[in-house]
């Protein structure tokens, strides 16, 4: 289960790595991805082409993310606004409230059920929900593509450079502002893809982004801000802690185990498992 939240964390962490901004409205982009997927499957694609739906939903969220970045986040970097952290936090929180309530106003507070991607399957003797298996495989494929893109392609290398040193990469001829925009779009598109993949698991309703976002943030804190391999480890750790806790103690307090794990890890390593201390303040 932890793997499924990794897409969310990856999106948040990617945006943080490039722009040093935390996008609090990630859950709402997840929700938009879910809604887009639901509508696409209803009107455009037949159910067996659900993967095409995932791609299109991610593309829609990508465009939306770019527009949001252009209108709201970009002014941070062209000298209009100081106190960047405060500005980004408040604006993205307000954006999340805005998107969620617009969704309520348009779709109503109802829960929509998209069609199943696959029926129940069996792994040897273990019965599994087909939707979860598909979501897991889809998450792995998307993460693999993302990793390949970052490590091997030219734009990916430019992203690495921007994350390491913004002004340094500018002297090497990279248009940082353009890459910021792309990064925000890609980060939100990851959330949108997660939303589309998980639509049959979490169902589709205006607040469906809340749970994955909390998990996503927990994973990021455990992993350390800005660490990509840490996310996979932290996602698995969190999933294991929750499964063991609900199996051995009580399933009703499933949220608490993850949080206790998080606080415990922060006590030992204040910057998370793989985080590097920032310049001492």
């Amino acid at each position, binding site marked *: 289960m932890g793997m499924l939240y990794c897409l969310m964390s990856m999106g948040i962490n990617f945006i943080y790595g490039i722009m040093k901004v*935390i996008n609090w409205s990630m859950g709402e982009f997840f929700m938009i991805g879910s809604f887009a997927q639901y509508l696409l499957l209803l009107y455009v694609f037949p159910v067996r082409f659900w993967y095409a739906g995932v791609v299109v939903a991610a593309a829609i969220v990508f465009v939306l993310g770019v527009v949001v970045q252009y209108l*709201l986040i970009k*002014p941070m970097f062209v000298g209009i*606004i*100081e*106190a960047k*952290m*405060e*500005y980004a*936090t*408040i*604006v993205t*929180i*307000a*954006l999340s*409230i*805005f998107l969620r*309530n*617009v969704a*309520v*106003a348009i779709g109503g507070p109802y829960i929509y059920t998209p069609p199943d991607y696959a029926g129940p399957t069996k792994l040897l003797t273990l019965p599994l929900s087909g939707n979860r298996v598909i979501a897991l495989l889809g998450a792995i494929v998307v993460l693999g593509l993302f990793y390949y893109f970052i490590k091997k392609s030219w734009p990916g290398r430019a992203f690495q450079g921007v994350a390491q040193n913004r002004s340094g990469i500018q002297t090497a001829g990279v248009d940082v502002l353009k890459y910021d925009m792309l990064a925000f779009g890609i980060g939100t598109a990851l959330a949108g893809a997660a939303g589309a993949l998980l639509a049959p698991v979490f169902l589709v309703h205006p607040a469906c982004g*809340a749970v994955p976002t*909390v998990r996503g*943030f*927990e994973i*990021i*804190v455990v992993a350390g*801000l800005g660490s990509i391999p840490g996310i996979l480890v932290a996602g698995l750790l969190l999933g294991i802690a929750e499964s063991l806790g609900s199996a051995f103690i009580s399933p*009703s*307090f499933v*949220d*608490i185990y*993850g*949080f206790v794990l*998080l*606080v415990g890890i*922060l*006590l030992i390593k*204040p*910057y998370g498992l793989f985080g590097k*201390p*920032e310049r001492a*303040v």
Partner: protein
Amino acid sequence: MGCSASRSEPFEPHNSKTCAASTSLLSMNTRLLKTIGLAGVLAAALGFPAVMSDYWTYVLTIAFFYAAMAASWNLLAGYTGQFSLGHHTFAMISAYTSTLLMAKAEVGFGPGIAAGILLAVVLSWALGVVCLKVHGLYLALITWAFAEVARNYLRMHFTFTGGDRGLDSALLFGTLKPLPYYYLFLGILVITVGIIAVIMYSRMGYYLRAIRDDAIAARSMGVHIVRYKVLTFIIASALAGMAGAFYGHSIGLISPVMGDFNEMAMIIIFVVIGGMRTQTGPVAGAIVIRIALELLREQSEIRIVILSILVILIMRFFNGGLMELVHRLPQWLHLGGRESVSAYDK
């Protein structure tokens, strides 16, 4: 303006200690006007229930609760720059502690409320120690996760906490008539704003602003930044806990809705629209918006959409909110008056 020369304190240019040289007739007058205005507002608030219906008295009682929450969040986020996204959670936890202690252990109101505030203090101390040592964003991330976890615990453990159905809370004055609660929350608001004003005018207030503006510079000037950040977090959470505990005992029913993220969003909306980093802004914002929300009760979904757009626009174009408007209006009308409260105007 002579006194906004030093970068660290453009927020309180009428402070007489640092602006002794420029304390002219004008600033004396401003101060007198402020005192008179404050006294007038207080007197109006005291006399208000005599002229208005019970309904509007109740609306204002709730508005005072939110104003106290917004003011204490402003101390943390506005002045110190530490974003807690679990401010409402401390109010909820405090209300639940007090109610549960009274219901299960049969203690009185006093010990119950005191225990509620104490729990808020202990929890915020623990969280603050864990996450205020590092970069500021960790506090926001962790308090956010904490808020969701606490709310889900209260929802899930229904045999003990009542779950989504909520809990009946004993009424402090044994009646549902709003009049005594109105004065109670007026008192809480005055105490909250008073404590914050004392902090901001004391040495600690300058430390907090220094931490917000430039933590490295503050530390190199000898400010123990972690200690003051944790202390502020504890004070703000204790104030939220106090408001929350009394809130539970005055509405008579507490439920996990108090811990919903929308509550936090409302607090942020009040502070930003009222004006961050001002003493009056959050209070004015909370009261004005609560009344506006009551008037717009028919369009329940649209109103929060409008408010969130307003917040984005204010942050984007007009950093300073309602109080900024109040201060700028005389300038636009060519009446003089002091410069902006926001540090970010060119």
